[in-house]
C-alpha cells in the first residue's frame, strides 16, 4: 500500500541521519545544486519522498545514491538544513547492508569492494594497487584496455614521481591494533544495523 510508513520509520531510525528525511519540504534546491543531478534516477528530494511513500524497492535499488560526489553543495544550500550528503550516503549504506545494492554499480563496486578493502588491508591507501584493482575489476582484457587508455596519464604520474611503480605497500606499524579496532567497530556497527 502506498504511503505505508513502516519503511520510512525504519529509515528514520536506522539509516545514517535518516530521521532528517521527514523534515524535507520538497523544495528541490538539492536537485538543482547537484553536479551530477542530471544523472540521478531520483534526485535527493525525490529519494526522500519515495522513502516517505513507502517505496522501499525503488529507493534501495536506485543507483541514485551512488551518484553522490560528496561535494556538499546540497548541504549548504538546503533551506531546512538537512545533512543531505550524509543522508544519501546513509541510504547507500542501508542498501548495501540490506543486500539491495547492485554489485555491478560502478561506484558501489569501487567504494565498497575496492577502496575500503584497500585501506583496511594495510592501514593506508595504496594508490597504485587501487588503480589496478579498479581497472581489472571487469577482468584482464578490460583492465588492459583501460590501462592503455590511461597510459599517458599514468606515465606522466610515474615520471613526476607521483605514482609508485611498485603497487605493493607495507602495513602500518600498529596494524594488529588497527585491525582489531576496525573489527570491534564493525561488530558494534552490525549490532546497530541489525536493530533495523
Amino acid at each position, binding site marked *: 500500500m502506498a504511503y505505508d510508513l513502516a519503511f520510512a520509520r525504519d529509515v528514520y531510525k536506522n539509516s545514517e541521519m535518516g530521521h532528517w528525511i521527514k523534515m524535507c519540504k520538497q523544495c528541490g534546491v538539492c536537485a538543482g545544486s547537484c553536479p551530477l543531478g542530471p544523472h540521478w534516477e531520483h534526485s535527493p528530494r525525490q529519494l526522500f519522498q519515495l522513502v516517505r511513500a513507502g517505496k522501499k524497492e525503488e529507493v534501495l535499488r536506485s543507483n541514485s545514491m551512488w551518484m553522490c560526489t560528496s561535494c*556538499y553543495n546540497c*548541504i549548504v544550500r538546503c533551506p531546512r538544513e538537512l545533512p543531505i550528503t550524509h543522508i544519501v550516503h546513509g541510504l547507500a549504506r542501508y542498501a548495501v547492508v540490506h543486500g539491495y545494492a547492485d554489485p555491478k554499480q560502478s*561506484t558501489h563496486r569501487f567504494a565498497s569492494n575496492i577502496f575500503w578493502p584497500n585501506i583496511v588491508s594495510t592501514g593506508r591507501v595504496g594508490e597504485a594497487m587501487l588503480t589496478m584493482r579498479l581497472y581489472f575489476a571487469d577482468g584482464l582484457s578490460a583492465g588492459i584496455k583501460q590501462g592503455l587508455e590511461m597510459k599517458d596519464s599514468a606515465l606522466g604520474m610515474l615520471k613526476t614521481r607521483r605514482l609508485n611503480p611498485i603497487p605493493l605497500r607495507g602495513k602500518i606499524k600498529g596494524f594488529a591494533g588497527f585491525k582489531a*579496532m576496525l573489527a570491534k567497530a564493525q561488530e558494534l*556497527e552490525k549490532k546497530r544495523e541489525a536493530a533495523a
Partner: protein
Amino acid sequence: MKEYTFFPGCSSEKNASAANMEHSVQSMCRMLEIQLNEIDDWNCCSASIGYAGGGQLPRMALSARNFALAKQQRGSTDLVATCAACWLAMRETAERMEHEPEVNADVNTALKEANLSYDGGIKTRHMVEVLIEDVGWETLKAKVKKPLTGLKVAGYVGCQTNRPFGVAGDDYENPLYLDRMIEATGATAVPYAKKVACCGGALMFSEVEKSCALVRDILQCAVDNGAEVIVTPCPVCQLNVEVYQGKINQLFGTQFNIPVLYYSQLFVLAWGGSWEEAALHQQVVPADPLRRFA
C-alpha cells in the same frame, strides 16, 4: 618556530599523487618557520567514500585512531591537514564524537582494541586556515620577493575545502580567500563562474565520463576567462583537473593543456624558493607560464 601536529594523508606520501603538494607545503612551512610534526603511524581517514564499506563507526574509528595517536604523541596541539577530504573526515568525526555520546562511547570501545582512547581536545585545522588565521595576510604579502606580476590565475576552491565547513568568514557560493592568496603573490585572480564547481571527486574512478564532463566545464570556464594556470588547495581537485586533461581532450575533442598548481607552490615561488622547492618539476602538465618568474 611554531609547531603543529601534522596529518599528511595518503595522497601526500612519497610517490603518491599529491607528492608535489606535500613537498611544496614543507618548503612553504620552512620559509614561514613552521614545524610540522607528522603523527607517527597514522592511518587513512577513508575520505568521502568510506561510508559504503565502512558505515559510520568503522569510518569514524579511523579518524579517532589518528586523534588518539596525535594526542599521545603531541598533546592537544592543533592538528593540521593539507588534504580537503582528510580535514573534512576528521572534523566530521570530531563533531559527532563531541555531540553524540553514543558515538563517542562506541568509537572509544573500538579504540580500546588498539590500546587507545580519545576524549577530545584537539582542534583539526586546514593548512589554509593556518595561513590566514595564524600567519596572517600581512606576512603572506610581506614575504614576496619575486611577485608573480601579470600571471593570470583561476583560483579553483572546489568543494571540500569550502563545504560544509569552509574557511571562517568566507562564503560558500563565492569564497574569496584563494583569490586573496593569489593576489598576495602579486598574480591576478581571474573571475570565473566555476570556482566552487565539483570535479567529480572520487567518482572520477567510477563515473569517469560524467566526471570528465564536469572537469571539462571547469577548464573551459577558466580558459575562457583568460587563466594561464589554475590554482587549488585540494589534492583531489588537482589530480582530476590536471591529470585527466588528456582523457578529456580525447573524449570531447578539446585542446586543454593548462597547468594546475597548489597555492603552496605559488607562495614558495613568489617568496623566492626554487623551482624544485616549489615541486614545480612534479607537474604532469608542465608549469611553463611560471618559468618567467623562476
